[in-house]
């Protein structure tokens, strides 16, 4: 197993930003990517609102290549590996890849991203690549002069439909909502409504795609009338949303019903040392800019976590009895209790050592010993917990400490 300080699964905007921060913090950092370095943003032709990059010619691939260079400049490695299994149980998290290689690190950032949602209608799977497509950049030009259907009405659906219209004769946009309602940004929606080659079909879903070798026609169902209409088309592009690629951590991390990983504001998942960033986590806005923010946050949190782990490992090397004193600058009681315990420990300095832990900054040990509030103490002897106490009564604290230390 190859060991690193920090492993990052996924080289999209979130993963690569984490790579920039990890590398810069001098952590030995590795990014594993199964497909394209650049993630979802790589297939975006125009990036309109990544701050500072507003020129017409700023494309997804351009920005993402810059991010990769940036991460690599700080010493982070990006390699091609398909992650299939994760072992999150131990202190070292182990990432297992398709070709049998394994990588380990004490901190792990998951930047799995999303993939297009499949509708699961007849013909969709069978004709994928033979007229059914999820990538206009890849396939639009094969439909020169054809009639093409686009399913969906979000940003991607309408923007890609206009791109496809550069090649196709006509683009039918299948919209589930009432007439005039789309989930797309206003600028693109207005452009799309005025576009001469775009035909909107409202209150409608796609029921079936027909064709032997290639797409020949589609069956659309009107939701108001229940009526089915068949139209001849050469291709169908799907833009009906995305699903997180989190199958390999199912049942290992807390997730919501849709499979997005739940994190706190530090990007921490339900397992200490494991972080989730970017489109695969539950969040409000999925954009390059928020992905980058996630990546930075997680890398800094991971760096602090690794410091704590290191301190803890050093502590376990001690022969002396250990007193962990959890405090917080916001708790006067904890400050006083810590000061008192410091004086007592000083009398027994050959036998015992005090470690002060500021709960407002460090949570790893608190998590490990299930400490919920400041002014708590854990007594350790040979790595085993002897006692846990809360210093609500300073006299009890002193008596307990003296008995233990004696």
């Amino acid at each position, binding site marked *: 197993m190859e060991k690193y300080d920090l492993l990052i699964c996924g080289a999209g905007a979130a993963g690569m930003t984490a790579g920039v921060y990890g590398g810069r913090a001098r952590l030995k950092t590795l990014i594993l990517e*199964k497909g394209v370095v650049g993630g979802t943003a790589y297939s975006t032709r125009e990036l309109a609102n990544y701050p500072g990059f507003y020129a017409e010619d700023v494309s997804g691939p351009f920005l993402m290549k810059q991010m990769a260079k940036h991460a690599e400049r700080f010493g982070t490695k990006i390699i091609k590996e398909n992650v299939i299994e994760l072992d999150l149980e131990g202190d070292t998290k182990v990432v297992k890849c398709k070709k049998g290689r394994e990588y380990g690190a004490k901190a792990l950032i998951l930047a799995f991203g999303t993939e297009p949602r499949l509708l699961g209608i007849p013909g969709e799977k069978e004709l994928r690549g033979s007229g059914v497509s999820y*990538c206009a950049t890849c396939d639009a030009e*094969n439909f020169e002069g054809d009639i093409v259907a686009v399913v969906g009405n979000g940003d991607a659906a309408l923007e890609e439909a206009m791109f496809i219209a550069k090649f196709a004769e006509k683009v039918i946009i299948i919209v589930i909502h009432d007439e005039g309602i789309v989930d797309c940004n206003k600028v693109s929606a207005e452009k799309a409504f005025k576009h001469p080659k775009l035909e909107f079909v409202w209150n409608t879903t796609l029921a079936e795609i027909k064709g032997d070798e290639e797409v020949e026609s589609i069956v659309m169902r009107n939701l108001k009338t229940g009526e089915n209409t068949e139209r001849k088309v050469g*291709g169908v592009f799907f833009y009906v949303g995305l699903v997180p690629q989190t199958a390999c951590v199912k049942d290992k991390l807390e997730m919501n019903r849709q499979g997005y990983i739940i994190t706190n504001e530090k990007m921490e998942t339900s397992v200490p040392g494991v972080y989730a960033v970017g489109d695969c986590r539950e969040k409000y806005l999925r954009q390059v800019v928020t992905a980058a923010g996630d990546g930075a946050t997680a890398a800094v949190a991971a760096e602090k976590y690794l410091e704590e782990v290191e301190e803890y490992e050093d502590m376990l090397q001690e022969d002396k009895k250990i007193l962990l004193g959890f405090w917080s600058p916001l708790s006067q009681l904890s400050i006083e209790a810590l000061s008192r315990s410091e004086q007592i420990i000083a009398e027994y300095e050959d036998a015992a050592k005090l470690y002060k832990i500021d709960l407002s900054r460090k949570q790893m040990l608190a998590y490990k010993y299930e400490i919920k509030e400041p002014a708590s103490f854990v007594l350790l002897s040979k790595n085993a917990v002897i006692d846990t106490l809360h210093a609500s009564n300073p006299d009890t604290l002193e008596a307990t400490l003296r008995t233990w230390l004696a």
Partner: protein
Amino acid sequence: MELLKLDIDSFEERIFKNGENCLVIYSRKTCKECKIIVPMLEELSELYTDGSFNFYRVDVEEQVPLYKRFPLKGVPSVLFFGQGQKLGKLAGMIEEEDVLEKIEELY
């Protein structure tokens, strides 16, 4: 091993004139699925180093006339040839096993 890229002349030579048993992956630089499938085929090609079956690649942006020769609806697409004939096709997000099965079935 990197797959040999074909142009219109080498395609003519190997597929039609020599009638090689082979597959050709049609891909393009901006396609995400291609970036997963091309390396997969590169690895698979190492199982066939005896020359009984060859693996080639066509970049559809660099070889537009070649791309137009067979009516494909998207990339990645894999075409299988033998004795100067197109024998089969796989398209979309395919796995190693799909390719191996197809080779088994066709040759």
